[in-house]
């Protein structure tokens, strides 16, 4: 059963530090919050077979992914006592050193926010129809594999 509206998750390109800062600032009016937990995924310059990753290009099966993000959101609200929750994921090219995933949970006390944040990140990586293509400095590529 759906109790919350579907929210926009995908952002074209990197998630900027300004966007993250503004998102935090928006919560100052929600004075029942006592703890925020934030996860930021950053594109790493991995070395694979002597080649260095310069960016990851993300693609998705949008309808399937948006349904799954919604399901994860609903499940997290059900499971944890959260005041609010935001999930943002990049699509398209994100250069190394920049942010590609932003999960932001807020609750009265820290444990709920922290546990919910971890729960969401794990499920997003495992269950959402998004694919990362790691692009090397010489423009060849490989397909990203998520560690368990």
């Amino acid at each position, binding site marked *: 059963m759906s109790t919350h509206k579907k929210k926009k998750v995908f952002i074209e390109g990197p998630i900027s530090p300004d966007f993250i800062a503004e998102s935090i600032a928006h919560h100052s009016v929600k004075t029942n919050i006592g703890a925020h937990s934030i996860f930021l*995924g950053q594109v790493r310059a991995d070395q694979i077979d002597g080649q260095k990753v310069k960016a990851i290009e*993300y*693609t*998705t*099966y949008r*309808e*399937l*992914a948006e*349904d799954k993000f919604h399901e994860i959101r609903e499940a997290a609200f059900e499971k944890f006592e959260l005041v609010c929750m935001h999930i943002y*994921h990049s699509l398209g090219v994100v250069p190394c050193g920049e942010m*590609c*995933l932003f999960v932001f949970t807020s609750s009265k006390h820290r444990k709920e926010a922290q546990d919910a944040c971890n729960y969401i*990140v794990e499920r*997003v*990586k*495992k*269950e*959402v*129809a*998004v*694919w*990362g*293509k790691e692009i090397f400095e010489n423009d060849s590529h490989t*397909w*990203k*594999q*998520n560690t368990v």
Partner: protein
Amino acid sequence: MEINILAFGQIEEIIGKDSFTLSDVRDTEALKSKLSDLYPEMNRIPYSISVNKNIINGNHTLENGDEVALLPPFSGG
């Protein structure tokens, strides 16, 4: 009977296009075996399948106009 197939990630790369149609595939097992004949490289990728945006487990009967997606392992985040 025609089904619409969407390919993503590495599978899109192997097939060389992001969508195509196939006819006369009665179920997802038949589809997999057809794909493995057409694109042997797909045998090395443990992909899952969604039918009309639901990921399926086991074999699933296909009907005319179904949207079937070939989903390599997810790697978001």
